[in-house]
């Protein structure tokens, strides 16, 4: 007997939650408990009174699983709303990465040149290293980090994706 795998699709969900102790464990744990995938998860409080946090989850799964993920999130008591941005239509996805590159000579010049092309900013420099800050959609960051590998990448930190729908309306 072999275990069957299903075709998966990637979805980005915006989840508004009460900013209370344990909420992140509740959400992340629900994903593990029910066998769902988390590609990335970001969280920060977004209201003036610090009462509400927005969690952006990039996940993947077959369509019926995505539907379950949304329903399961929605029934958690501290969850106010769940929006499937991928389903909702045009939206902007952004991620920030800090990329440290070390090297001398041609590699250093090439790194600087590529950073310029990718609109990455230098946030730290020594005579043998740079730290670049780059924002963009995840695939742009992916590509940039890939290029940096060839010119002396030593470390990378990524925030995970945040996303918001296009147009005047709130999700």
């Amino acid at each position, binding site marked *: *007997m072999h275990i069957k795998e299903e075709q998966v699709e990637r979805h980005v969900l915006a989840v508004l939650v009460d900013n209370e102790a344990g909420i992140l464990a509740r959400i992340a744990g629900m994903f593990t*408990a029910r066998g769902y995938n988390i590609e990335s998860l970001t969280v920060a409080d977004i209201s003036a009174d610090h009462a509400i946090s927005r969690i952006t989850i990039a996940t993947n799964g077959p369509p019926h699983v995505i539907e*379950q993920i949304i329903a399961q999130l*929605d029934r*958690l*008591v501290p969850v106010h709303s769940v929006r499937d941005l991928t389903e909702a239509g045009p939206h902007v996805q952004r991620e920030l990465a800090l990329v440290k590159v070390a090297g001398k000579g041609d590699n250093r010049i090439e790194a600087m040149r590529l950073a310029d092309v990718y609109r990455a900013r230098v946030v730290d420099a020594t005579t043998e290293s740079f730290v670049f800050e780059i924002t963009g959609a995840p695939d742009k960051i992916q590509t940039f980090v890939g290029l940096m590998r060839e010119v002396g990448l030593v470390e990378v930190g990524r925030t995970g994706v945040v996303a918001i729908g296009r147009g005047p309306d709130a999700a």
Partner: protein
Amino acid sequence: MAEKSGAEILVQTLLDLGVDTVFGYPGGAVLPIYDALYDHPKIKHILVRHEQAATHAAEGYARSTGKPGVVLVTSGPGATNAVTGITDALMDSIPMVVITGQVATNLIGSDAFQEADTVGITRHCTKHNYLVKTPSDLAGVLTEAFHIATQGRPGPVVVDIPKNVQVAEAEFSSHNNLKNTRYQPQIDGDFKAINEAAEMIMNANAPVLYTGGGIINSGPKASTILCELAALMGAPVTSTLMGLGAFPASSKQWLGMLGMHGTYEANMAMNRADLVVCLGARFDDRITGRIDAFSPNSQKIHVDIDRSSVNKTIRVDLPIIGDVGRVMEQLLAVLKGRKFTTPDYEEWWARIKGWRATNCLAYPESKTEIMPQEAIRKLWEATHEQSPIITTEVGQHQMWAAQHFDFEKPNKWLTSGGLGTMGYGLPAAIGAQLGDPDALVIDIAGEASIQMNIQELGTASQYRLPVKIFILNNEYMGMVRQWQELTYESRYSNSYSDSLPDFIKLAESYGWTGILIEDPADLEAGIKKMIETDGPVLVDCRVAKLANCFPMIPSGAAHTEMLLAPEDVKGTMDDNAKALV
């Protein structure tokens, strides 16, 4: 406003919320609460013998009365022992509030004595849980906990209270409880969807009502409305294990339970129906059998209060989110408004009559051994007029009880359906008896299951509860043995109940009456004696050892592939089927 200790606030809030019974077990981290209880005899505290039993007793109390069950246990082992019952309540949607003691806030995380991460451990086996860090939050949290436990799809809520929070003081008045706003489940069904459902019902030629525990949870009124709706629709009715009693088994429209050990007529009706109306049930794997062969030609309406139940395993054509009792009421009004008259479904009922003719619940008779099915039937005959509350453990005896004991009313059948917890029945019976002191409460048990919470004989003795235990003793973990016979060529690995106690002496040592029934000729007299004996009675009924529970849909099979009798058993199964639960 006066200042009160956390423990005092807790007890006062429980009183304000109408709590009169608490199932619990004291320990270091709840001593302040127990001390506060000492001054409040209005709250009846039932001292169990093991925390798991406190949770099951609370479930039994909740399931039979409709009120939330309340549990009070200490930190660490007290809380971890309660986890099985909490999970059981989550799976079966039982309203329950579990108050756990915790080490003082300054000790949390230090591996203190009897410390466990209760909130972490119970996060995914509760509907919601709390760690209360200040006594001023206690009243609000408890009020919300009861609201969450009882509203929407009911479930267990854990409130973890550190010991210093029980001792520290805060301002409190009975009237400052928070109004809950953040948890407001949808009660009324969407009007457009209800109209669509009515349309589908009016166009059906072979409809079936598939009902579940949601109807019981909705309250007794939902059962009345179900009867009205079924009468108007003229359709056959089947139910899950959890829904038994919502529809009277004496009705001509009753098909019996469906699913793995359901009746042939119920499963065939599901398979051949052109419209399935699912009311407060969740297409559990015990119900559906092989998913791709489940009711293949029907349109499906699913009424559920929990959106996550919709399309979880079976795709449905029309989901209606709302309280099932309320939605049925709305549906009934729309059908009446449209002048719907009861069709006779002549052809459909003729087919059902054909399926009924297989007489699938028949069992071989014996003059030398007591057949377990016969024992259940006789128990029903002797008691049904008293409308008893029946609890069960888990296994063959549970399925035989579901098949052969007929229920006419809701809240009379208490069983562990979703989690399948052996050891549920005795504490549940204790809880039910406390909820209704005059009722005849019988735990139908197996000799293996009963030993999982046998220590609760003492609880029943202490509170003078006249609970009856009826053990179908076949000296096997019967359902395990049956599966081994069906799937593993009768290799009975560890399923024999060796070194059994003398149940009669055991019962007597706890102050119970023990009755042994060995001979089929003594069955009726033994049952009669059990009912007529005051106080708690344990019956050790020795039954045929190798009887199997039929009909049965083997794992991985379709509704149409039922095993009806021993001669259908092949004794082997392929790996795909073996891998299923």
